[in-house]
């Protein structure tokens, strides 16, 4: 009886040890330092992971992007034709047909003060572009480019193109 409970306690000990050690190993192996890519200097990063859709049927997938804190980019519908609209262009996608795109509404952003102020329409933080797609069965990759132009309150950066690869699995 005592031998049985001793063995059970030892077994439990192994489990406790595993529970303590495994997270440490996982941390050491897989710790993330945030956005390490040089894309960081572009002020926008692509966040989305794989989308799973029903094969052969129109489905909506979301492409999630994040604008660095303190920066903004014009929305898809800026108030002035000279401002560069954010837009997503499909470059290639065997096995994925894009039927349409839907952009989020921008937020009002007041640049300057008083009579000099200009009202912009911008994306800040996380924003999502929705694509209506039909994907063939299996793992597909959609290649596209997000074109945008970033500014902060006092300075602007040249227009940039962020290449993105969207993993889509049709099931």
């Amino acid at each position, binding site marked *: 009886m005592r031998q049985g409970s001793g063995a059970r306690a030892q077994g439990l000990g192994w489990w406790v040890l595993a529970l303590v050690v495994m997270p440490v190993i996982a941390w*050491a192996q897989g710790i993330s330092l945030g956005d*390490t890519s040089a894309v960081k200097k572009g002020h926008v990063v692509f966040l989305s992971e794989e989308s799973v859709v029903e094969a052969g049927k129109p489905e909506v997938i979301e492409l999630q992007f994040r604008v660095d804190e303190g920066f903004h980019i014009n929305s898809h519908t800026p108030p002035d034709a000279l401002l560069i609209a954010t837009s997503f262009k499909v470059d290639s996608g065997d096995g994925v047909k894009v039927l349409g795109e839907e952009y989020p509404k921008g937020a009002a952003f007041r640049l300057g003060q008083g009579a000099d102020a200009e009202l912009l329409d911008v994306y800040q933080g996380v924003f999502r572009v929705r694509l209506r797609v039909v994907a063939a069965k299996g793992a597909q990759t959609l290649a596209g480019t997000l074109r945008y132009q970033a500014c902060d309150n006092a300075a602007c950066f040249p227009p940039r193109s962020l290449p993105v690869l969207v993993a889509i699995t049709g099931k």
Partner: protein
Amino acid sequence: MRRIGVLAAMVVLVGLLVWAGVYNLRQRRAAMQRAQIVLVKDGTNPPATSGSGSNDASVFGGESLKGKIAPGFTLVDLSGKKVSLADFKGHPVVINFWATYCGPCRLEMPWFQEFSGKYQPQGLIVLGVDQDEDMPRDQVAEGAKKTGVSYPILMPDKSIAKSYALGDYLPQTFYVDKNGTVVEESVGTPSKDEVEANIRKAVGL
């Protein structure tokens, strides 16, 4: 005995995994540092904070021209006429780099227009140098028209951004006194008062 062997094997395995993880982490940190150094060297590192311009271009990675003779240039204006900095020898000159997509540029350009009139008696010249990439002259003209400025707008060439050590951001402004020396420079849009203070410095008031 068998248990000790299994335990020892597990300890070795865990130790190896931790070592590999730490090694991996160090490598990634080193790569991060190298990447950051490259960004600073390229002059493309963004301002760490937002909200106001800076009077020191060097903090953004570009080389400061303050106290140096303004690099000479010859560019064409919106009518195709050649304009050289040397044409304005003996005048205080404001050289403002801007682009049509740049909201902060559009904010400050009317101020330069206003001050070009206010300090005309002191001989102030304002030159706007467009930095749009491959934009046709008529579109630049349209952008300039929207800001309401009437001072010369010059089209860029490949060398001026280099000679003025421009970074990857606009606007940038250089305030040159009548002797041709850059007395002040700014990156981003400062306040209107700061712009005027810089102009007063250039005109010698």
